[in-house]
């Protein structure tokens, strides 16, 4: 066991850090990190930063050179990500494109399409989104009903997608739709990529509990997609989609927001009934438990990285991150707000209080987005522990005959 890089890793890390130090500034760790939900300049800054990375070869390290990468190893990607995370740089806007759409294009697009689409994606010039979920297909993504009808060398799409992050500023999207409801549920879907500026696409933001709108509804009315933009065979839509979803569920990480350090710092200064909150044993026990959870997640990540560093495929441990961190986020938010007693409802300029209130308002969404607590527990039970599947009422019949209530 050691936490040192191999000589090669150390060399690579040094290279990353040198470039970053030249081109960005370190984060100020002493102030709580609050994700700003709506920020107009964010996009511009993010695109500029992505371009800068791309020009210097840092944008998509593991991609082949011809699409803008340098063919780096998994470990090198992690080292880069670790180092970049220490700097105050805009992130997040390209995650879906680069993390989910890129890999699908890499696997299923033609050579010309890859040359056309991948470099601008890596460069941050073109932004991509993912169009899977539907109003009646949330946890059960394969329950989707948006229709694709073939018409010569093109397809006509009608239906509605939902929970699409970044749809309003995306240039392209990957899309899975049902081409035949008479086939079995998982066999009647086909996968495409689509120009988000196509006629017939309408994007409406979804307002969340937090007041922000990080997601959209996307309506398709007679939208035309050339057959050349089909990814995979007709009827292979679910096979293509599931790879993407696996990428998503692995990528879904820490819930972010107020954490145990924030609770700890706050408890040191906030008084409760005349005593510092940190002298309250109930508060201390909560802080101890949150610290153990946070630490457990961090060390689980380190074990995963160790596996990667050895060239092994990491285990399924990553699936626990969101369950644990989203629950913790909700509890810490609650803890912070309650420590203010009657004044806990008030919005103030205090960054800590903002952090707790954002945590409390945002955590319910974190417990749902990218797989609900319940779906993730099912995944752990079935895929990791090998327990039998739930009985399925949606197999072996035509999609149109599966019970769906009124929804």
């Amino acid at each position, binding site marked *: 066991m050691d936490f040192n890089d191999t000589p090669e890793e150390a060399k690579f890390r040094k290279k990353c850090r040198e470039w970053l130090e030249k081109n960005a500034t370190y984060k100020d760790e002493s102030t709580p990190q609050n994700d700003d939900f709506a920020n107009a300049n964010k996009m511009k800054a993010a695109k500029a930063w992505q371009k800068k990375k791309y020009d210097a070869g840092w944008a998509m390290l593991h991609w082949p050179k011809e699409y803008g990468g340098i063919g780096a190893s998994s470990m090198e990607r992690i080292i880069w990500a670790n180092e970049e995370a220490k700097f105050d740089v805009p992130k997040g806007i390209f995650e879906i494109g680069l993390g989910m759409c890129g890999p699908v294009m890499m696997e299923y697009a033609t050579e010309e399409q890859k040359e056309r689409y991948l470099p601008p994606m890596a460069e941050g010039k073109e932004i991509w989104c993912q169009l899977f*979920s539907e109003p*009646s297909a*949330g*946890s*059960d993504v394969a*329950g989707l009903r948006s229709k694709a009808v073939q018409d010569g060398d093109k397809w006509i799409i009608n239906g509605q997608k*939902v*929970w699409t992050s970044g749809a309003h500023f995306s240039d392209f999207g990957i899309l899975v739709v049902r081409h035949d409801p008479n086939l079995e549920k998982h066999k009647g879907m086909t996968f495409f990529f689509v120009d988000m500026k196509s006629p017939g696409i309408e994007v409406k933001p*979804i*307002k*969340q*509990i937090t*007041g922000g709108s990080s997601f959209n509804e996307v309506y398709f009315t007679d939208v035309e997609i050339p057959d050349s933009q089909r990814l995979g065979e007709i009827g292979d839509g679910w096979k293509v989609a599931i790879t993407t979803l696996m990428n998503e569920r692995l990528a879904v990480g820490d819930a972010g927001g107020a954490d145990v350090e924030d609770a700890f710092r706050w408890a040191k200064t*906030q*008084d*409760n*009934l*005349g005593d510092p909150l940190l002298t309250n044993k*109930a508060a201390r026990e909560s802080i101890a438990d949150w610290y153990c959870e946070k630490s457990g997640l961090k060390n689980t990540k380190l074990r995963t990285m160790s596996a990667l560093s050895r060239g092994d495929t990491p285990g399924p441990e990553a699936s626990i991150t969101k369950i644990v961190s989203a629950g913790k986020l*909700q509890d810490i938010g*609650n803890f912070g*707000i*309650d*420590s*203010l*007693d*009657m*004044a*806990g*409802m*008030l*919005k*103030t300029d*205090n960054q800590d*209080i903002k952090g707790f*209130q954002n945590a*409390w*308002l945002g955590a*319910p*969404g974190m*417990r*749902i*987005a990218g797989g*609900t*607590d*319940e779906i993730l*527990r*099912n995944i752990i039970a079935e895929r990791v522990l090998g327990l039998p599947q*739930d009985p*399925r*009422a*949606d197999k072996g019949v035509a999609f149109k005959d*599966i*019970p*769906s*209530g*009124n*929804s």
Partner: protein
Amino acid sequence: MNLDFSDDQKFLQEEARKFLEKEEALNRNRAVLETDNKFDEDLWKKIVDLGWTGIRIPEEYDGLGLGHLELCVIAEELGRFLAPVPFSSSVYLFTEAIINYGTDEIKEDILPKLVSGEIVGTLAVTEDLHAPTKNNINLSYANGKINGKKIAVPDAGVATHAVVVAKSNKGISLQLVDLSVTGVTTEHQENIDESRGHFSITFNDVETQLLGDEVSGWELYESLINQAAVLFSYEQIGGSQASLDMAINYAKERYAFGRPIGSYQAIKHKLADMYIALTLAKSNCYYAAWALSTDAADLPSASATARVSATKAYQLCSKENIQTHGGNGFTWEYDCHMFYRRSKLLSLNIGSLSNWREKLVTSLEQSNIN
């Protein structure tokens, strides 16, 4: 042996429910939340017309002269429909303070106007970002006047009067203040549940009337809060029940993988846990209502028990209702979040869960439970 409401009380509750349903109180709550109104004036007027603000006010002061039990059933319904009105501030706190501690003269002046709606009251205690205690009240009372600032005062935007916790060189006292006089400045403070506005109030040499004496104000305040906790708890179980009902309905109607999500044990058992928490809380509320209505010796522990379990039930039910709704649950469009917000507001308005747990154990120590 009858730990239940009377038929008359149940009838009153039924009528209240029908009224609030017909008035679409839930939609009114959304409207208040989404605009700059800090309460629903029209609904409030109708509530006044129904006489609810005078339930506990003796008939000699134009009230209905009913008891706390009638107030409990109304509170439960207001909680169920998230009615965006200053009922808790004006009725559970302000009105009760006047009834309990006002001189005859004050009662004659104030109570009829509470019945008619001319007066709306609130209670102002917090001064900074901490739980109020005997030791952190600094708003000063001297020569019949108060000076200082209160924050996080619910419903002060609509209130005409307030009971203010103040400190003089003799001790803590409760002061009755007319908020329309010169020297009073009320300012809106943004909060997490804008369906019930919160405000700061600054007092600059404002004349007041003393409630009770200048020494035992803190004890009067505590006693007032212990009573009000029962009513707040009823609002909380009303909200919990509504959240549970929403979750049950959704779980029956929403399908995933070819069957209703309510047929999955993950959802079933979640809802069973919500039901359990709610049932415990409700039963504790019934007992506390009895203790309140008979001014029983164990009111402090009974009200703290109701308060702690109702707060826990509402927090659980409102957050797991969101979870049951999946993606829809955390949209602004669905009503789930309005219950989540209100659960927090009600749990803080008269002090946090952890401080009520503390009150409960303190009362057990005093009464020596074994």
